[in-house]
């Protein structure tokens, strides 16, 4: 009977695990919904900002605005930001991000560029602490709901240092949120600002299609026909930091949504596997129980036969 008892205990333990993973799956699903809404809500602003910048941008601006300065020749020093989640149990999500970051680091360092690493999110920080790589800065307080203020705090010092010529580029490794099931890691170059191409102005995602703009193209003069208040330079000077911050904000929001998507998938798989395991264990358990009953009957019958003598 020892085997049956052992099996029963294992079944109970796997059932408990399944209950936990199932709950986590449901929590992730509801968080995912909200995070997805935030990604969608951030889109019109990002699109409008990109459009405005594309309208205003001209090549000669690059010389006047430090945030647009392209590094001459090879970059000497690059800041690489790695966004990961604070919590695990989301499958290969963080592993993928970390791998992408290491790959990018190797690429940059291979080209003789000095890389300083900034960590956002506990998992990435933990990994690089483990491998003994120093981080230039780290923060773990940006949770499920990144705000524009978070993005501004992260980018503020980096923008200053870039403008001061201390950094030649700022890149961020984040998870693109293509869909809850597809969250590939990606590298985005935030600084120097690469203006969105004028031709790709309509970032025609599904979110934009509803606007009346899609139905009829607006009366849009080219940039020189605008009245610019205060002055063109001042507007560009004000818009660039906003654009930079918004890029960062989008990376944060997308990663947050991607994390929930990855967690939901991971937990769903775990729940399904637990179910399979329980089925297999229960089958073994029943077989053991039946074997035992059969054996007991055989013994009783055998005993009765012996008594008849």
């Amino acid at each position, binding site marked *: 009977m020892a085997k049956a008892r052992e099996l029963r205990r294992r079944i109970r333990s796997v059932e408990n695990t399944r209950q936990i993973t199932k709950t986590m799956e449901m929590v992730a699903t509801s968080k995912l919904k909200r995070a997805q809404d*935030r990604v969608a809500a*951030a889109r*019109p602003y990002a699109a*409008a900002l990109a459009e405005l910048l594309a309208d205003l941008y001209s090549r000669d601006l690059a010389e006047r605005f430090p945030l647009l300065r392209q590094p001459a020749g090879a970059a000497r020093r690059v800041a690489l930001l790695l966004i990961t989640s604070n919590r695990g149990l989301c499958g290969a999500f963080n592993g993928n991000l970390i791998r992408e970051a290491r790959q990018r680091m190797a690429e940059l360092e291979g080209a003789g560029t000095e890389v300083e690493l900034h960590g956002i999110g506990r998992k990435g920080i933990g990994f690089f602490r483990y491998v003994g790589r120093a981080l230039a800065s780290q923060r773990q307080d940006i949770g499920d709901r990144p705000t524009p203020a978070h993005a501004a705090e992260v980018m503020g010092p980096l923008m200053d240092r870039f403008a001061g010529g201390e950094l030649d580029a700022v890149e961020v490794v984040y998870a693109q949120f293509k869909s809850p099931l597809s969250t590939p890691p990606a590298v985005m170059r935030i600084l120097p600002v690469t203006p969105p191409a004028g031709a790709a102005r309509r970032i025609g995602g599904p979110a934009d299609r509803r606007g009346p703009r899609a139905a009829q193209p607006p009366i849009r003069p080219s940039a020189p026909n605008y*009245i610019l*208040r205060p002055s063109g330079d001042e507007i560009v000077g004000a818009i660039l930091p*906003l654009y930079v911050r918004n890029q960062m904000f989008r990376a944060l929001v997308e990663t947050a949504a991607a994390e929930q998507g990855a967690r939901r998938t991971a937990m769903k798989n775990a729940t399904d596997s637990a179910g399979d395991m329980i089925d297999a264990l229960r089958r073994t358990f029943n077989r053991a129980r039946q074997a035992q009953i059969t054996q007991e009957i055989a013994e009783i019958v055998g005993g009765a036969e012996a008594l008849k003598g």
Partner: protein
Amino acid sequence: MSLPESIHLEIVTPEQRLVNEVVDEVVLPGSEGSLGVLPGHTPLLTTLGIGELMYRRGTARRFLAIAWGFAEVLPDRVSVLAEIAERAEGIDRERALKARDRAVARLRGRTADTDIKRAQVALQKAIIRIQISEGVGPKEPS
């Protein structure tokens, strides 16, 4: 080219799209002063300061608190990209009053490590919120 008869107004912040509708008139808090826009306005691009934004459809007026950002004005549409935008209805007047008092107290009793700029911004934001929240109902003669 005939002039458009209405303006398509879109107000977005980094976090959400607040307004997306057709209106007759918009008054913006430009960084160089208040700016009224009617349909058929000359294309204009301006930075925004802190202040109230009003828009009117027929006789219905709505107010928003706006802080920083840009407005792009075209003959038939106005896009406002604001860092902060809040509907008058969404403003908690009590909280704004408290925030104002806090900011004032911080500025009065400032020490070496007071973040003056932050306190000033907080004060400005609180004041504009209070103004907006007062602007919703019928204005009482003072």
